[in-house]
C-alpha cells in the first residue's frame, strides 16, 4: 500500500511528460488529495489512460495528446490557481476541472478571456447551460437528469397504488443541486414526494431520519449527495424496522464499495449509472479498457465508475479535436464547442449508448440493481434517455 501511495506521489510530481510542439494539449486540475481524492485519483488515471491509449493507436489524425495535470486538493482557490498556472504555461485549448465550485468560479473568465472547452468531475445541473456557460460541458447526465431517469423508472414500476418517493439528500451544494427539478419532474410524472430528508455527509446516527421514513412509508427513496456514509446506516436502519423500501442512488453512490459495505443488505439497492461497469465484459469499449489496463496496470483488478467517467471525458475531448481536424478548423475553444454541439449518435463502443450532446450534456442513464450474491450491479432497465 505504501509503495502504491509513493508511486502516486511520484506520479503527481512527474505530471508533465516530454512532448513535441505539434501535440494537442489537455490541462487538468485534479482532486488527487482532499475530500474528493477517492474519486479524483481514479478520474485522473482514466483521463491519463485514455490519452495514452489514443496515442498508442496513432493519436488524433497523427497528432499526439499531451496531458498536463496538477493536484488541486478539492479546494476552489487552489483549483483556480492551478488552472491559471497551467493556462499561462501551456495554453491548452481544453481543460478538465475538479469540481462544480471551480467551474462556477472560472466560468466568467473562461467565457470572456480564455475561451476553451471545459469539462469537469461535476454533474451539476447548473454547469450544463450553454447560454450561461458556453464553453462548459457535462460528460453525462446532470444530477437533475439522474433524478429524471430514476423518477421515470419509479413511475413505470409502482409498488402498489400511486408511486411514492422520498428524497434523502445531503446539506451540500452537491446534495441540493437537483432537488427543485426533481420536485417538478415528480409532479409531472404523478409520483408523490412524501418526504424530503436532509442530513449531513458522514452522519453517525440516522435514527430520526429512519423514523421519518417509518412514518411516511415511501415505496422508493432516492439518496443523493453522499458517497458512502450514511447510506448503509439508512438502508440497514429501515430493514431493522421491517420497511419494504427500494433505495436508489445517483452516480457517486453506485460504486462497488456500497455493495462491499452493505454485504447481504445490498440486495435490492438500485441506482443510475450513465456508463457501463468495468465488469460488463460483453461491452466492446470495456473490453478495450480492460485490455489496456491488463497491459499498463497488471495489478489492477477493478476500476470504479469514476475511472470510466475520466475515460469517457477524455474520449469527448479527443472526439472534439478530431472533428476540428477533419473539418480543417483550428483547435480553439470556439471550434471545439462547435464540434461538441455537432456530435450526433456517436458510437462509444457501448460505454454509453450512442452519444448526442443536448445542451452540453448527455441526458441518459440506466437503472442498475445490486446483486449481493454476485457482488455487482446488474442492469434492470434499458438505457433511459430523457426528452
Amino acid at each position, binding site marked *: *500500500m*505504501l509503495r*502504491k*501511495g*509513493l508511486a*502516486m*506521489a511520484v506520479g503527481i510530481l512527474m505530471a508533465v511528460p516530454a512532448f513535441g510542439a505539434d501535440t494537442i494539449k489537455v490541462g487538468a486540475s485534479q482532486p*488527487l*488529495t482532499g*475530500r474528493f*481524492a*477517492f474519486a*479524483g*485519483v481514479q478520474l485522473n488515471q482514466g483521463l491519463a489512460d485514455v490519452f495514452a491509449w489514443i496515442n498508442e493507436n496513432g493519436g488524433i489524425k497523427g497528432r499526439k495528446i499531451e496531458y498536463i495535470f496538477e493536484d488541486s486538493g478539492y479546494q476552489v482557490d487552489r483549483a483556480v490557481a492551478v488552472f491559471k498556472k497551467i493556462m499561462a504555461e501551456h495554453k491548452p485549448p481544453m481543460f478538465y476541472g475538479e469540481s462544480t465550485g471551480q467551474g462556477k468560479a472560472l466560468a466568467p473568465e473562461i467565457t470572456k478571456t480564455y475561451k476553451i472547452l471545459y469539462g469537469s468531475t461535476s454533474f451539476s445541473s447548473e454547469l450544463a447551460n450553454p447560454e450561461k456557460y458556453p464553453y462548459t460541458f457535462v460528460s453525462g447526465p446532470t444530477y437533475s437528469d439522474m433524478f429524471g431517469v430514476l423518477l421515470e423508472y419509479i413511475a413505470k414500476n409502482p409498488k402498489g397504488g400511486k408511486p411514492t418517493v422520498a428524497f434523502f439528500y445531503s*446539506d451540500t451544494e452537491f446534495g*441540493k443541486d437537483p432537488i427543485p427539478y426533481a420536485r417538478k419532474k415528480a409532479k409531472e410524472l404523478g409520483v408523490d414526494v412524501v*418526504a*424530503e*430528508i*436532509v*442530513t*449531513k455527509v*458522514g*452522519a*453517525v*446516527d440516522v*435514527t*430520526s*431520519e429512519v*423514523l*421519518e421514513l417509518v412514518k411516511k412509508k415511501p415505496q422508493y427513496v432516492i439518496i443523493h449527495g453522499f*458517497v*458512502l*456514509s*450514511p447510506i*448503509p*446506516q439508512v438502508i*440497514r*436502519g429501515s430493514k*431493522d*424496522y421491517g420497511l419494504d423500501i427500494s433505495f436508489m442512488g445517483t452516480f457517486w453512490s453506485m460504486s462497488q*464499495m456500497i455493495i*462491499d*459495505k452493505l*454485504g447481504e*443488505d445490498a440486495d435490492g439497492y438500485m441506482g443510475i449509472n450513465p456508463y457501463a461497469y468495468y465488469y460488463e465484459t460483453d461491452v466492446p469499449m470495456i473490453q478495450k479498457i480492460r485490455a489496456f489496463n491488463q497491459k499498463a496496470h497488471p495489478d489492477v483488478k477493478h476500476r470504479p465508475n469514476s475511472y470510466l467517467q475520466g475515460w469517457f471525458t477524455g474520449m469527448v475531448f479527443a472526439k472534439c479535436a478530431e472533428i476540428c481536424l477533419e473539418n480543417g478548423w483550428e483547435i480553439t475553444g470556439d471550434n471545439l464547442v462547435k464540434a461538441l454541439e455537432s456530435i450526433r449518435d456517436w458510437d462509444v463502443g457501448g460505454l454509453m449508448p450512442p452519444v448526442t450532446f443536448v445542451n452540453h450534456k448527455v441526458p441518459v442513464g440506466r437503472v442498475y440493481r445490486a446483486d449481493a450474491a454476485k457482488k455487482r450491479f446488474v442492469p434492470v432497465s434499458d438505457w433511459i434517455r430523457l426528452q
Partner: protein
Amino acid sequence: MDFLIQLLVSGVAVGGVYALVGLGFVAIFKATGILNFATGEFMMIGAYFGYTALVGLHLPFWAALLVALAGAAAVALVVERALLRPLFGQPTITVVMVTLGLSSILKGLAQIIWTAEFRSFPRIFPRKPVFLGPAVVPSRLFYGFLIALAAVAVLAAFFRYARAGVAMRATASDQGAAYSLGVDIRRMFGLAWGIGAAAAALGGVVVGAIGGISPQLGALGLKVFPVVILGGLDSVAGAIVGGILIGVLENLAGGYLDPYVPGGSVKEVVPFLVLLLILLVRPYGLFGTREIERV
C-alpha cells in the same frame, strides 16, 4: 410515545460514541492543558491501524483493537516527543496551531499509506439490532455505547486511583509544584498523549465500523468538540454526559424539528448552538475546572 423513546434511546447510544472520541480530547487536556485539534485524526489513524490488523493481517477483533490503540498511542508519543516537547513554555496558541498542522499531516500520511479510497470494516458487531422495549438500536451503536462506558470507567479509575493518573492530574494542576515533588513531567506529557490517542482510536474503530473509513474520517473530531466543551474539557465523566446530551438533543431536533424546517439540518446545527450557549454562560462546561484559558 414510542417515537420519543426511540429518539431518546438512540440519542443515548450515539452519545456514547461521541464520548469515546471526546475522551481523546479530555485525556490530553486533563494532563497537559493542551487542546489537541488533531484528536479526530488520531481517531482516523487508529481506525486504519485496526482495519489493517483485521483485513491485512487477519487478526481477531480483540487483537486488532489492541493494534489500533497501540498504533495510535505510538504515533502520539512520537508526535509529543518530536513536535510538542520543544514547545514547552510557548504560548498556548502556538501549540494549538501545531496540533492544527498536525491534523493535515496525519491526513496526508493516511492518504499516502492507505490511499484515498473508502474502506469498510468487516462485521465486528452482530448484524441483528438490539431491542430495548419499543426502541430499536443498531447493534453497532449499542455496543459502541457499552465500549464507551467501559472506557470511561477505566479512565476515571486511572485518574482517580493510579499513581500515574494522580501524577498527571498534579502536572495539569501546577507543573512547578508537581515537578518539585518529583513528578517526571515529560513522562506525564508523553503518557497523556498516548492515552488520549488510544481513546480516540477506540472511537475510530467504532465509528469506522458504522460508516467505513477514509482519510477524512477525522472531521468527526470537530463535531465532538461541543461534547467536550459541554461536559468540561478536563472531565472524564463530563465527556460521557456531554456526549449523551448532545446525542439526545440532536435526535430530538432531527425527529421533531427537521421535518418542519425547509432544507432540514436543524439536527446538525443544535450541537453548535449548545456550544455557543455554553461558551457564553459556562465556558468551563458542566463538570470542568473553572480556570480554562480561551484560545
